[in-house]
């Protein structure tokens, strides 16, 4: 390691080093080289993903700000907008789960209030190895308490999320955090530097040695060596962040700044470069003026430190004093550390001495871009050709249902979300666990917004294109199940090493699938994040795109959750009566198989279903609504019953002589609703008008879950038993 040339140690290739020499017309010094290394890392420069990300649709009448800022911005009417983004913190969480996850939340929250928006909700998407593994339990417990520890302290409700447990994530868990903010459109702030000569102020925490090279760390595979890089794990200070939120929102609302930028990956180097590059400006920063937490820090360390809870702001002329006052009220310092210049250079000074000088554009726009080669992996065709009808049908379906209810991928996530404050801010109308998406009211209006994160890595692994589509469709469907109109999405793309052709093939196909669905459903991509190199010992995680989506409800009173509410209501399936089992939890749990053809999505039908759901909910024609996903129709029905504390009887028909496909297929574009008897005709007529199949499955009532197939009762489980299996599985595993 020590024998490698210094640029290689920093993560640059020989070719990239030559490019740096060429740009500068000389050899870079150590500081300059460090700045290039972090800015040209995958994490900051998106050098492997940029060309592919261009495939995403990013525009629409609802979009106020697409990708390219700290977060995306979408219009919700009445002069208000929602601001949102999702980001990964996988590698830090693998090493120190509590702090890794906590600082992940801190980072994404900063991206939101940097734009002048008040953060109003957090979400998270988590992936771990199998839950019986002790190390996995340690990681899972640490991550969850870290997310709670940070978000609860900030007073931002954590309203939704998802957790999956799969072998492929054992060595490399995924921790993706999303934050949503609310802003008056005319108070939106952007990350731009002001006029030439404007000062740059650093506010918040003092700068320490933490997290140096975090950006390059995130751009490498986890190895034994990663453990030695441990000092790069930062400790979060949510109290400091809470003060920063209040102070920053105040200076932005009072119009005191041109722009603001949080310090994230690559610290001061990245945030100053990004601010300057927007308008072709330059920056000059004096490292001696940066307040430090530790003695003896070098200029290199100051410029690359990833200490948390810091912001760079560019005040309007004459406002420095007022800004200082506001920060002082919150007990925070604001220090001028440099200024905006007109020469397009990033100049680092140490007092009077110039310690480094490189063109801003060289760090940002000139970051190399790679078009990686792609190659279809051999596994893909094999899985597609697998025929589940060759498997024996289970003899005891009662047991199968119990096993599925107890699977941590399906079981209640109550153990997780009761550790999160999901009600602070008093907006949470549909709380975690109750619906397919969280629903928040927007105070001062009659409106609501719905929020969800979704991404089934197993499906994407088996078929990246279809899996990518599924992720977008499921997110949109989840929103529609609460009555919301889906508006736009953010995404976090968690993949293995993109330099491997099979991984790059997964990446590209996934994005193509996501892009096709996003385009068809009118949910453009407004922000996102890419996390590559999620591998341990050469094995990649399942390709895992996580879609975070936001929707709007014009009338908050007309929102819906999943619980059955009245005995005697009819249970109706909206969508096709399918039996495809590819990629299902059933195949995994009952047959130990991750295989099969991933069900295809018909995007036109999906779109019609979304409209139908919004309509029947707005018109008050249904009493519950729940989409069919992991565990299939059998589990969807059980969840409605458990949440509503009432049983049901359904009468199903087998397909090709088998019941398992009907019960456990995870084919998309399907939901179960419960309908008052009197309104059945209306619902059926509306479904027909939308060209959506609808069929009555049965009736709500009683205290048992009864599934009949071809007239024969094949499952009959007491509601109490189902509730305790499903409700206790994760808690049990964790205690």
């Amino acid at each position, binding site marked *: 390691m020590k024998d490698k040339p210094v640029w290689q140690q920093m993560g640059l290739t020989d070719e990239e080093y030559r490019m740096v020499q060429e740009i500068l017309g000389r050899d870079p010094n150590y500081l300059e080289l460090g700045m290039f290394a972090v800015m040209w890392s995958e994490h900051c420069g998106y050098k492997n993903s940029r060309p592919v990300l261009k495939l995403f649709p990013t525009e629409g009448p609802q979009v106020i700000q697409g990708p390219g800022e700290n977060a995306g911005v979408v219009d919700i009417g009445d002069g208000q907008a929602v601001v949102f983004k999702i980001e990964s913190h996988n590698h830090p969480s693998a090493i120190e789960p509590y702090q890794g996850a906590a600082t992940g939340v801190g980072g994404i929250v900063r991206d939101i209030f940097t734009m002048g928006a008040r953060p109003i909700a957090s979400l998270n998407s988590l992936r771990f190895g199998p839950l019986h593994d002790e190390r996995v339990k340690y990681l899972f417990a640490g991550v969850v308490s870290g997310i709670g520890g940070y978000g609860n302290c900030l007073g931002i409700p954590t309203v939704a999320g998802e957790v999956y447990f799969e072998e492929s994530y054992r060595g490399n868990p995924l921790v993706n955090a999303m934050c949503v903010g609310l802003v008056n459109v005319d108070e939106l702030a952007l990350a731009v530097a002001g006029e030439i000569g404007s000062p740059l102020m650093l506010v918040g925490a003092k700068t320490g040695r933490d997290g140096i090279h975090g950006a390059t760390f995130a751009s490498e595979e986890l190895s034994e060596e990663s453990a030695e890089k441990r000092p790069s794990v930062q400790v979060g200070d949510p109290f400091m962040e809470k003060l920063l939120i209040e102070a920053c929102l105040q200076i932005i609302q009072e119009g005191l700044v041109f722009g603001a930028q949080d310090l994230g990956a690559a610290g001061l180097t990245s945030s100053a470069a990004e601010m300057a590059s927007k308008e072709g400006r330059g920056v000059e920063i004096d490292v001696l003026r940066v307040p430090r937490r530790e003695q003896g820090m070098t200029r290199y360390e100051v410029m690359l430190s990833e200490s948390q809870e810091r912001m760079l702001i560019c005040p309007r002329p004459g406002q420095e004093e007022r800004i200082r006052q506001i920060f002082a009220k919150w007990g925070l310092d604001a220090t001028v550390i440099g200024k905006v210049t007109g020469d397009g250079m990033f100049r680092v000074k140490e007092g009077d001495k110039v310690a480094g000088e490189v063109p801003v554009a060289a760090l940002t726009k000139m970051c190399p871009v790679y078009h990686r080669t792609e190659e279809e992996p051999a596994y893909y065709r094999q899985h597609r050709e697998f025929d589940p009808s060759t498997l024996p049908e289970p003899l005891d379906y009662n047991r199968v249902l119990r096993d599925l209810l107890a699977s941590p991928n399906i079981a209640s996530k109550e153990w997780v979300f009761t550790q999160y*404050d999901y009600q602070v801010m008093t907006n949470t109308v549909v709380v975690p666990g109750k619906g397919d998406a969280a629903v928040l009211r927007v105070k001062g209006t009659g409106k609501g917004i719905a929020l969800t994160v979704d991404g089934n890595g197993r499906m994407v692994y088996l078929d990246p294109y279809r899996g990518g589509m599924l992720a977008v469709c499921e997110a949109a469907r989840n929103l529609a199940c609460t009555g919301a109109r889906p508006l736009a999405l953010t995404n976090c793309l968690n993949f293995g090493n993109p330099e491997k052709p099979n991984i790059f093939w997964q990446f590209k196909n996934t994005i193509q699938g996501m892009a096709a669905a996003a385009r068809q459903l009118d949910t453009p991509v407004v922000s996102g994040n890419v996390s590559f190199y999620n591998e341990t010992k050469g094995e990649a995680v399942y390709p895992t795109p996580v879609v975070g989506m936001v929707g709007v409800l014009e009338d908050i009173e007309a929102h819906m959750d999943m619980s059955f509410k009245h005995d005697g209501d009819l249970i109706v399936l909206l969508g096709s009566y399918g039996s495809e089992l590819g990629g299902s939890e059933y195949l995994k749990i009952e047959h130990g198989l991750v295989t099969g053809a991933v069900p295809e999505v018909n995007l036109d039908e999906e779109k019609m279903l979304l409209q139908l759901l919004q309509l029947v909910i707005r018109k008050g024609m249904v009493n519950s609504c729940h989409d069919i996903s992991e565990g299939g129709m059998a589990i969807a029905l059980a969840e409605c019953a458990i949440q509503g504390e009432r049983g049901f009887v359904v009468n199903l028909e087998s397909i090709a002589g088998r019941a398992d496909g009907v019960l456990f297929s995870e084919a998309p574009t399907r939901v179960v609703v419960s309908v008052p008897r009197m309104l059945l005709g209306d619902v059926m007529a509306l479904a027909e008008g939308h060209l959506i199949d609808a069929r009555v499955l049965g009736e709500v009532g009683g205290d048992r879950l009864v599934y009949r197939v071809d007239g024969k009762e094949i499952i009959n489980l007491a509601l109490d038993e189902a509730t305790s299996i499903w409700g206790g599985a994760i808690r049990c595993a964790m205690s």
Partner: protein
Amino acid sequence: MKFGVVVFPGSNCDADCYHVIKEVLGEEVEYIWHGETSVAGFDALVLPGGFSYGDYLRTGAIASLSPVMPSVVEFAQRGGLVIGICNGFQILLEAGLLPGAMLRNDSLQFRCLTVELRVETADTPFTCLLEEGQVIRVPIAHGEGNYFCDEQVLDELRRNRQIVFTYRDPNPNGSRANIAGIVNQERNVLGMMPHPERCAEKVLGGEDGYYILASMVKWFKEGGR
């Protein structure tokens, strides 16, 4: 009636309390910054929930030394109505306005859920619209709500009927005698871990908390009896 909501660095339910008082109760309300040294002009004070000073060292400890606290103590001693919710309760304990101390939840986890409370006494300014024995549903969200006091203090609390709310089974945090909220001997200072402001509107799924805050208004407007 004019409420003051005291804001400490790290308070995060201040805006929620403000909202409910103004929009739901329809009463006057203002924020009071922790650096103020007077609470003149207010008829009731709210110490809201949150993480004052990040909950660092001990919950409520650093906040209890804020410049505003001596005037809060004086206000309470003169008989003014003070309600401390969650972190506000912890601050009241640390400030000595209520007896006892808070320990970490016995589960060692932060817990957010809606619990059932039994109203132990209706004879307080905070429960005069409720009935003794009534069961109400109110959300909790805390990591340190495990109320502790010694035997002697517990006896006194019982004797003086200072225990206002208890958790019905299951106790979510291990608190002594299932205590969820207590008043001082004079009955004008209430500390409670559950959040009444989170269940004061129908759209949020419950209105039981409304009656706690509305009791204060009724009591005050009827001249304090």
